[in-house]
Every structure is written in structure tokens, then in C-alpha cells.
């Protein structure tokens, strides 16, 4: 771990996030005021971790076989006998609801000839291999050995499915392929405290989009771990977004970035009015009618937060909505739990997950889930909408405005991957900023520890 920063040197001009919080119209919880910056230094990050097959193979062995990872939501397996399949690289995990409050995970492979026990999610009363019919109970006990007389070496008691560690938090199901993995709560640290007011378990998957990318999984996720790229990749929004006023904090295995909206980017050479900031936040063109007007004496932040509260109160407890600060209603609060889980805080419904695409080291899966509150009966979770490597993320209409943001991000990612090969002809690493790319540096701080074990 790097050094904790004791003062606020080397920060962008403009308002600090603490100063922005002071303008909030609602009480701000202590967790948002807590700062935990860490200085990881200024060393370059070797680029071959993104481009080399050798590193991919090492990651499979030293990270993906070891670490806790988000596999599915509990709502994907609501009834006893429901199953979900989670693939990571060349490995596959079968997750099974075995009791009202019990979830188990097994290596997804028949102990006879190794075929996947299940190819996809669905309900099951038993776990039967489609090849020769070896069958296990949902609890993992071997029940049926076809032609049992021909397998004198198979002792049913010794052929139970191996139970993998399962961790549960906020409706998320985590698994590890390491039987000796550290306790889930220790790995999570204080993350649950940061989310305790957001009722993640009371959300449903309203949208789930999986885009296959032609880049390494780390290349993909790093596009979502800092606001440094906003002025260049998403210039249209910076009139109302304090990109370099973002705050970056580190808490054990997770890091947090907070990017304020309703405040101008310090990159601007002009002073936008509150109305111009709101128009930018709402993506209003010069030739379009205004959606919202900022009255005299009000701010864009206040107006956007008020509109969000009214909207959310339609599907959530109004008292709870009223307890949330403006910051929680409108700012971008994006966490990263090592290695690849990115839940957003506040009332932003985004959760990202990035992982290798099969065993390909230069392809990845970029997933976006919208976790939304609901009233009444829990709606069923959205099915995964797969988008191929050569298809546009704009096809993900269910993501609304965000698909257009992703269209800009995904324009870069494959070109970053391709460019990093050429980069290594002239220098071995990428040059990260000291503060704004804190989350990337924090990731590699933990990554290097796993890789060196």
C-alpha cells in the first residue's frame, strides 16, 4: 500500500469536493466526508500486463483462482433448485440455491469425464451430467452412477461435488475458486458500511448488457475508474461536470471516486451560468427546448437533485429518498472492489463487471447492470443482452443516455489495446497520473501482491 497523503498538495484548481458538499441542501453522511487519499508514487505501469499471454495465464492462476469475485445476484436464483453458471476465463462455476437462505457453488464439471454439469442457468431438481448421466443432488451428493457395476473405484461418499466458498452481500453472490480464501467479510472490509443506506438487496436487475470488447479486461475497466478522461472522451458533459474536482479515496481492497455534477470543469476557459450547466447535464442541444429551468437563487445541483428525488420517490420509500443528500442523488460515486467489481454509490444504479472473454487475453466482457428500486412484487431480473465485438453498444437501448456515453468509451478501448503493443517498442510502460488515476494505481498495488504470491 502507498503512503497516506496528509495534505492536499497537487490538486486541481477549482472547488474541492468537500467544499461542494458544504453547499448540499440535505445532510451529508459522514461516509461522504471521509477522505482517504493514498499516494502510490509516480512509477510507470508495465504495459505487458495488458498485452502478454504470459500475464493472462499468470492471472488465471494467481488471481482468478484465488480471489473473491461477483458471480450473480441472489435474484437470479430465487427458488430452491435454481442454478446460475458463472464463467471466468477457462473455468466455470455452478451456483445453486439449495435452501431458502442457502446458496452453494461447485466447480462446474462432471467428476466422470469432466463435461460441464450445466451449460446455462435454469431450474433443476438434480445436477445430471448430459453426457453419461452421472447425477448429484442439489447439495452435491453423488446419487446416480450409471453402470455402477463398472465403476468399482467410485465411492459415492468420496465423489461429492466440492463446495466452493460463497459470500453474500447486498443481494450479490460472490464465489472463490480457492478453498482457503480469506473470509469474505475480511475481503470486503468496510464496503458494506459505504452502501448501508442504499438497500442494494432491495433492488432488481432492470437492465443487464454484456458487450464483448477487443481489448484486455483491465484495459476495458480502466476506462471507468477515473474522471481524467472526461474532458477529451466526453467533452459535451464537462460544462456541468467537475471532472478534475473529483476525489479519489482508498479503503483496503476497494477504492472510491466521486465526480461532482452541477459544477463546471476547471478545464473551461469561460464561466457557465447555472442554466448552462443544467442544460449540459440534460444534454440539451442549442436547437432544443429546455427541459428544466434554474430559477433565480437556485443552482443546477439543487434542481437536478430535486428532480431526481421526485422521480425516485415514485418507486421507492419517499422518506428514504428525502434522507439522501444532493451528492448521493446526482454525483457519480464509483467504487472498485478488487479485481473487477464496480458498484456505484448514491442513487446511481450502475454496477460494472469486467472479465476476460473466455481464455482470450486480448478480448473481454464489459457488463453493465442497472439495479433499480421497485414497489410491490419483485420484478424478474432482466436477461443478459449480449452485444458482439463488432456491434455497437448503441444497440443497448435499455441503457438510455448511458449507451451514448459508452459509445464514446468503447471507441477508445480497442485502440488503446492496439496502441499498447506499439508503445512497448519505445517505452515499457504506461504513464499514470499521481492522483487522478489513483484507482488504477490502487488496483495494481493489490494486483502485484497477488501476482507475486
Amino acid at each position: 500500500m502507498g503512503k497516506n497523503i496528509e495534505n492536499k498538495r497537487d490538486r486541481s484548481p477549482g472547488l474541492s469536493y468537500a467544499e461542494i458538499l458544504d453547499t448540499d441542501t440535505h445532510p451529508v453522511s459522514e461516509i461522504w466526508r471521509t477522505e482517504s487519499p493514498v499516494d502510490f508514487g509516480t512509477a510507470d505501469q508495465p504495459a505487458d500486463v495488458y498485452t502478454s499471454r504470459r500475464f493472462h495465464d499468470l492471472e488465471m492462476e494467481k488471481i482468478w483462482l484465488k480471489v473473491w469475485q461477483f458471480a450473480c445476484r441472489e435474484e437470479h436464483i430465487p427458488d430452491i433448485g435454481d442454478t446460475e453458471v458463472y464463467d471466468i476465463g477457462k473455468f466455470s462455476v455452478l451456483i445453486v440455491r439449495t435452501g431458502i437462505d442457502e446458496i452453494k457453488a461447485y466447480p462446474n464439471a462432471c467428476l466422470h469425464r469432466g463435461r460441464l454439469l450445466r451449460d446455462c442457468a435454469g431450474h433443476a431438481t438434480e445436477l445430471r451430467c448430459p453426457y453419461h448421466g452421472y447425477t448429484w443432488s442439489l447439495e452435491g451428493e453423488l446419487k446416480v452412477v450409471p453402470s455402477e457395476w463398472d465403476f468399482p473405484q467410485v465411492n459415492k461418499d468420496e465423489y461429492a461435488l466440492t463446495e466452493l466458498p460463497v459470500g453474500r452481500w447486498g443481494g450479490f453472490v460472490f464465489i472463490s475458486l480457492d478453498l482457503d480464501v480469506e473470509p469474505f467479510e475480511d475481503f470486503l472490509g468496510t464496503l458494506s458500511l459505504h452502501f448501508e443506506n442504499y438497500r442494494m438487496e432491495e433492488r432488481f436487475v432492470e437492465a443487464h448488457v454484456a458487450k464483448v470488447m477487443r481489448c484486455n479486461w483491465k484495459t476495458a475497466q480502466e476506462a471507468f475508474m477515473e474522471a481524467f478522461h472526461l474532458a477529451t472522451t466526453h467533452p459535451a458533459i464537462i460544462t456541468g461536470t467537475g471532472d478534475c474536482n473529483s476525489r479519489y479515496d482508498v479503503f483496503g481492497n476497494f477504492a472510491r471516486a466521486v465526480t461532482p455534477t452541477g459544477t463546471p470543469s476547471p478545464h473551461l476557459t469561460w464561466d457557465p451560468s447555472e442554466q448552462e450547466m443544467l442544460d449540459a447535464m440534460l444534454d440539451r442541444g442549442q436547437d432544443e427546448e429546455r427541459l428544466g429551468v434554474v430559477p433565480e437563487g437556485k443552482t443546477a445541483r439543487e434542481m437536478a437533485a430535486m428532480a431526481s428525488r421526485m422521480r425516485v420517490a415514485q418507486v421507492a420509500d419517499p422518506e428514504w429518498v428525502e434522507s439522501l443528500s444532493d451528492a448521493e442523488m446526482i454525483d457519480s460515486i464509483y467504487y472498485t472492489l478488487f479485481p473487477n467489481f464496480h458498484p456505484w454509490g448514491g442513487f446511481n444504479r450502475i454496477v460494472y463487471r469486467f472479465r476476460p472473454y473466455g481464455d482470450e487475453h486480448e478480448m473481454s466482457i464489459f457488463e453493465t447492470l442497472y439495479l433499480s428500486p421497485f414497489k410491490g412484487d419483485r420484478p424478474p431480473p432482466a436477461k443478459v443482452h449480449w452485444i458482439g465485438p463488432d456491434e455497437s453498444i448503441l444497440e443497448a437501448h435499455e441503457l438510455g443516455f448511458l449507451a451514448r456515453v459508452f459509445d464514446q468509451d468503447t471507441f477508445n478501448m480497442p485502440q488503446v489495446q492496439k496502441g499498447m503493443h506499439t508503445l512497448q517498442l519505445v517505452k515499457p510502460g504506461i504513464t499514470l497520473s499521481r492522483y487522478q488515476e489513483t484507482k488504477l494505481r490502487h488496483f495494481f498495488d493489490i494486483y502485484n501482491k497477488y501476482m507475486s504470491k
Partner: protein
Amino acid sequence: MHQMIHPLTRAIYDAETDEVVKVTRDGKSGLYTRNGEYISGELKQSVDPEMCRWVASYVEHKNAGVGASARDRAGAFVAMKEEK
């Protein structure tokens, strides 16, 4: 169709279609692809490809019927207007 002023360069980006963007700066205009490649016109300079994509994708989504949904910040203001 969707005209925006670039916050940094102050050039005007106006999507003619979901593939063609008109860029105007210092009184001169040119047509560019959604990736910022020059097509024609008096203005022939480097333009911002991401800004081209931004305005063009608005048209693409509009043509596909994707409006200000409940998930968008704009959706909250649309709802407020409808309630009035």
C-alpha cells in the same frame, strides 16, 4: 438535429444524420463522419471525433425511439413537466 457547442473549442457540432456531422468554427463549416473524418466543406481541420459521435449518436437513438427514459437524468425533468 442535435446542435452543441464544444465546451473547450467553442466550435458548433450539428448532426445532419446519424453518420454525418457539420462542424462550424470561425464562420467556416465542414462535413465530417461520426468518427471525425473529413468529408467536404470549407472547414478542413482536426475536429473532435468524440464530439462528432456524441451528436450523431443522439440522432441514432432518436431514430430508434430511445427517448429520455426513467434511467436518464433528463427523464426526471420530463416527468416533472408532464406532472405540471
